């Protein structure tokens, strides 16, 4: 019961909080692509892979009091951040254990900017294509973000790092 909710609370707990809705969306997507068992369905939206189901579950977890949402006015936009509450920690007390590697992947993702994670997740969305075609797709769907060749290389290197981390 509510196992999928518990996985999200565990994720945010391991991350010691996540700042930015977009960042959270991309982190879960990347974790899912790294074969961690998240069930939320994703589609391609403005900022890359996006899950309505994830948005809904996060709202529910806030309503349940397991997650705390804070919003900060950044002038031109509002930034949301999520942390686990005391009740949330109780809630995941009996949940299934998560693989050790998840914590390490989360730590690596958390250090990165949401712009970078947007690039990584969008590349992963097209991971059934050869590398050159993946890059071409990103340039088409993200034509306004002007990602550089260097950023592309860094994103592929990061995907490699995460894959290696899981294989440990």
């Amino acid at each position: 019961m509510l196992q999928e909710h518990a996985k999200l609370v565990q994720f945010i707990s391991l991350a010691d909080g996540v700042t930015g809705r977009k960042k959270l969306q991309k982190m879960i997507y990347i974790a899912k692509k790294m074969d961690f068992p998240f069930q939320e369905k994703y589609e391609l939206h403005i900022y890359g892979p996006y899950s309505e189901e994830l948005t809904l579950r996060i709202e529910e977890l806030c309503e349940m009091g397991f997650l705390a949402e804070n919003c900060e006015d950044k002038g031109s936009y509002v930034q949301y951040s999520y942390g686990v509450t005391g009740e949330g920690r109780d809630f995941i007390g009996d949940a299934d254990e998560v693989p050790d590697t998840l914590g390490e992947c989360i730590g690596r993702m958390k250090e990165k900017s949401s712009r970078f994670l947007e690039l990584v997740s969008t590349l992963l969305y097209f991971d059934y294509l050869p590398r050159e075609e993946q890059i071409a797709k990103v340039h088409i769907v993200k034509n306004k973000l002007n990602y550089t060749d260097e950023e592309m290389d860094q994103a592929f290197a990061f995907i490699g790092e995460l894959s290696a981390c899981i294989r440990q």
Partner: protein
Amino acid sequence: MMDYATQKLSEEKVFKDPVHRYIHVRDQVIWDLIATREFQRLRRIHQLGTTYLVFHGAEHSRFNHSLGVYEIVRRIIDDSFSGRPQWNDSERLVTLCAALLHDLGHGPFSHAFEKVFDLDHELFTQKILLGDTGVNSVLRRVSEDFPRKVADVIGKTYPDKLVVSLISSQIDADRMDYLQRDAYFTGVSYGHFDMERILRVMRPSEEQAVIKQSGMHAVEDYIMSRYQMYWQVYFHPVSRSAEVILVKILQRAKVLSEEGYTFKQEPVHFKSFFDKTYDLADYIALDEYILMTYFETWIREDDEILSDLCDRFVNRRLFQYIDFNPAKEYRKLGELDALFRKAGIDPDYYLVVDSSSDLPYDFYRPGEEEERLPIHLLMRDGELRELSRESDIVDAISGKRRTDHKLYFPEDMLREGKKKKVLRQQILSILNT
């Protein structure tokens, strides 16, 4: 090669359609695509899944809907966009093909099937377009890269964003068809709006189709129709009950197969999905007729859970439901889970929380974190304005998500079971039924 792309039928063909009156086909490519086995398969997949168990008229298929989306896009291109400088008429055929084929990858009772086997119908649409299929061979007669172009439009990665927006946006041909078609076949009085007016005031722009300011009220009506249809039809709690049972049947069959259970009717069509070795041919081979045949025969299986769930689905003995507030009642759920187990009723199959949620309209302004492209109005001075800035009605419902949670359970089993009556009574009193 190029001749095939522009080849017209010697006489226009028409399909009589209850929503659009007539669906007109002049292009040989479109006619040939309709004749493929992958497109004909859509006749055997309900447009609204289990909704026919509530609204008995909802027997229409994804075949009907796909033709409807094609017809709307054809009218937009040929009647509203043609000759305007922002529209590139060389995109006509790829847009029509994408409209016709956008739902090709839907499986039987797609929502439930995708959920249990972790599949994605959009990915299967792409695979059918690009794989060894009848559809692919028709598209390749246009040009070698044409299947990829159609797949990119449907995958929202086509360079011309205007083309993508006709198939996939907050005011696209897909939604305009399904709202009207589903309203017609369910018989409800919601879902109707003045599509002719919307098409008349739709204009091409660089990134998406936009609506002339004078058409704002028709768009308001469309958004309100969508809002009503979601809550009156698509999220109807009884059809959700049928879907819950459907999910549980598939999960039970999968578990039994993994445990080595000997089926009287072997799940031959499902095997590759159970062990994740399926290929495109396995997927295309499935339709709702096949699933229903299995469900009917599985009623006579020895496994009581599978037999009961199939009987419920085939003979419409659905689960009862109550409103459920996860925030306040999640502890109650744990308590019920334990009581169900004590009473000998497996809660993994007979106690289910189902949630439905929808955003009627969402806006996006640069710098914000939201994710959808908004509807833009074309003002008299040529400026584009986001719809909710101009419409009070749309502003009132913009960005407001509505969610509904239900807890499903077999009330009949709890009332009629002969064993552990006290426990069952206790469960019923917690469920407040």
